[in-house]
C-alpha cells in the first residue's frame, strides 16, 4: 500500500460515510469529503505524525454550472516527510455555497479562501478576514463562475452607464 492509499484509508476509517468517494486519475488521488468534515480531516492530516501533511500547496474551486453539486473546492496537501501530494475535494450545492475555513489548521488558507470567495462567491465559515482580494472591494459578481460572461460587454460611458447597468442581469444576484 502506498502512503497516499494509506492516508486515504485512514480518512475513510475515521470519517466513514462522510467520505463518499476516493478518486484516482493519472496516478493522483483525490478524496471527496463531505463539507462538514473538511476541517477535522485537515486537522487529522496535518497533526497525525503518520500522515504529516504539513504544507497546504493549493486551494481552489471549480464551477460545474449548471450541474449539481455546482462547486467543488479543491485542496492540494503536500507531506514533506513522505514526499506525496494528496487532493481533497468538497462538493457544494449551489443553494448553499458555504464551507468551513481551514485557516486554523493551515494559516495560508486565508488568502486562498479569499480568492475563492472573490472569484466564485463561495463563503468560508469562521474566516478571519472575509474580503475580496483580487477584484475591487465594490465589485459586483464573481468572475470565475461559469455563468459570468467573458468579454463582449458594452462599453459604459457616463451618458449610458445606468442604462447598460440595468441590462446586466448577472451582476445583480
Amino acid at each position, binding site marked *: 500500500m502506498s502512503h497516499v492509499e494509506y492516508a486515504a484509508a485512514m480518512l475513510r476509517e475515521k470519517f466513514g460515510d462522510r467520505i463518499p468517494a476516493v478518486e484516482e486519475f493519472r496516478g493522483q488521488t483525490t478524496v471527496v469529503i463531505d463539507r462538514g468534515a473538511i476541517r477535522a480531516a485537515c486537522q487529522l492530516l496535518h497533526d497525525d505524525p503518520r500522515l504529516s501533511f504539513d504544507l497546504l500547496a493549493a486551494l481552489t474551486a471549480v464551477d460545474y454550472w449548471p450541474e449539481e453539486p455546482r462547486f467543488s473546492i479543491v485542496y492540494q496537501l503536500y507531506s514533506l516527510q513522505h514526499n506525496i*501530494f494528496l487532493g481533497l475535494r468538497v462538493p457544494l450545492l449551489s443553494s448553499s455555497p458555504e464551507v468551513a475555513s481551514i485557516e486554523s489548521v493551515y494559516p495560508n488558507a486565508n488568502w486562498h479562501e479569499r480568492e475563492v470567495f472573490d472569484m466564485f462567491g463561495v463563503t468560508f465559515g469562521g474566516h478571519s478576514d472575509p474580503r475580496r482580494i483580487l477584484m475591487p472591494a465594490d465589485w459586483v459578481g464573481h468572475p470565475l463562475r461559469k455563468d459570468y460572461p467573458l468579454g463582449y460587454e458594452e462599453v459604459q460611458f457616463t451618458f449610458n452607464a445606468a442604462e447598460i447597468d440595468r441590462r446586466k442581469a448577472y451582476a445583480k444576484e
Partner: protein
Amino acid sequence: MPPTSMEVTVDELKHLVSPRALAGDTMLLNMGPQHPSTHGVLRLLLELDGEVVVTCIPDIGFLHTGIEKNMEVKTYTQALVMTDRMDYLNNLGNNLTYCLAVEKLVELDVPPRAQAVRVILTELQRISSHLVWLATHALDLAAMSVFLYCFRERELILDLFEMVSGQRMMTSYIRPGGLWRDLPPGFEDAVRRFLKAFPARIAEYESMLTKNPLFVDRTRRIGVISAEDALRWGLTGPMLRGSGIGLDFRKAQPYSGYEQYEFDVPTGTHGDTYDRYLVRMAELYQSVRIIQQALDRLPGGPFISSNRKFVPPPRSELGHSMEAVIHHFKLWTEGFPAPKGAVYVATESPRGELGCYLVGDGGPKPYRVHFRTPSFAHLQVLPRLSKGHFVADLVGIIGSADIVLGDADR
C-alpha cells in the same frame, strides 16, 4: 457628507489594524501601488509607530488580468500564450508547468531531446529571474552598480531566448508534446560561451555584496521566519530553503528528467533576508551546473512528440499525406480533446512552487485552469516578516521575498 474614498478604505481594514491606530497613537500610511520598491503594483497599508512597522496590510489585485478565465475560452494550445504573461520573469517556466499539466491530462510523451532543452531553458530562465531579483533587491538597498551589472548579464540570456523563439520575454516556446522548433544552429555554442563567462560574474556580484558591511547590516536578522512558520504559511522555494528546509520540487518530484542531473539544494539556517540572499546566489551556481550537464549529453532525435492526435504534423508532410492535412486542419481549427478529469502538477519556479491545476471536460478547451503561484503565497506572509522592523527595512524584506505581481494577481 459622504466619506471620502480614503476613509472608506481605512474603515474597511479597521479590523486589521491595532486599536492604537483608531485612537490616533500610530500613523496609517499608504505605500504604493506606484512605489518603485514594491516591484510592480503592490499597495501596502502601513501602521507605523514612529519609524517602526506595527502592521502591514498588503492589498493586491492591481495587476489582475483574468488569465484563468481567459484560458477557459481558448483551446489547449492557444491558452499557452496566456501563461507567458503571468509571471513575466519566468515565462518559459510557466510554459513548462502548463505543458506538463496538459501532457499529464492527455497522457502525451515528450521525446528526450525536448526534455533536455526544456531543462536548459528553464534553468537559464532561473538565472535571469534571479538576476532581476538581485538587481532590484540591491538597488532597493542602494547598491546601484549591482543593478547595472546584473542587467548586463540578463541581456545575454534574453538574447538566447530570442534566438530560439524570436521573443525576448513572451516566448511560448515550450509546447504540449515538446517544443515549437528545434534549437537553431549556434545555440549550443552561445550557451557554452555564456556558461564560461558567467561564474566569474557571479563572483563579481558576491564581491560587491556578500561581505559588504552596508549590505550585511541591512539584511542580517531582518525579516526572520522560522522553519515551522515558513511551512505553516505555505512558503516554498528560496523563502523556505532560507529557513533551512531543503524542499525543491526538482529533487523531490522530478519532472523533465531532472533526476538525471547532479545538483545540490542550498539551504540557509537563520531564515533572514541575508540567508535568502545566500541561497539564491548559491542557486545561480547550481543552475550553471545543471545547464552544463544537460548540454554535454543533449540527446538527438525529434524535438516534439510524433503523436498526431495532439501535435500538428510538420509542413513537409502536408504536400503528400492526406492524413497529415486532416490532422493539421483538425488541430488548428478545433484543437485536441482532453478527457474528463483533473490533474495537479507542481514545478520549481525561481520563486518557489508553481502549481497548475487543470480540469478537462472532454472538449478541446480547458474547463478550469488554476495556477498556484509562489508570489501569492509569499506576499501573504509579509505582515509577519515586517512586524517590528523599520520602514526602510520593509523595502529589503519585499525584495527578499522576490515577488512578481503578475504572478500574484494573474
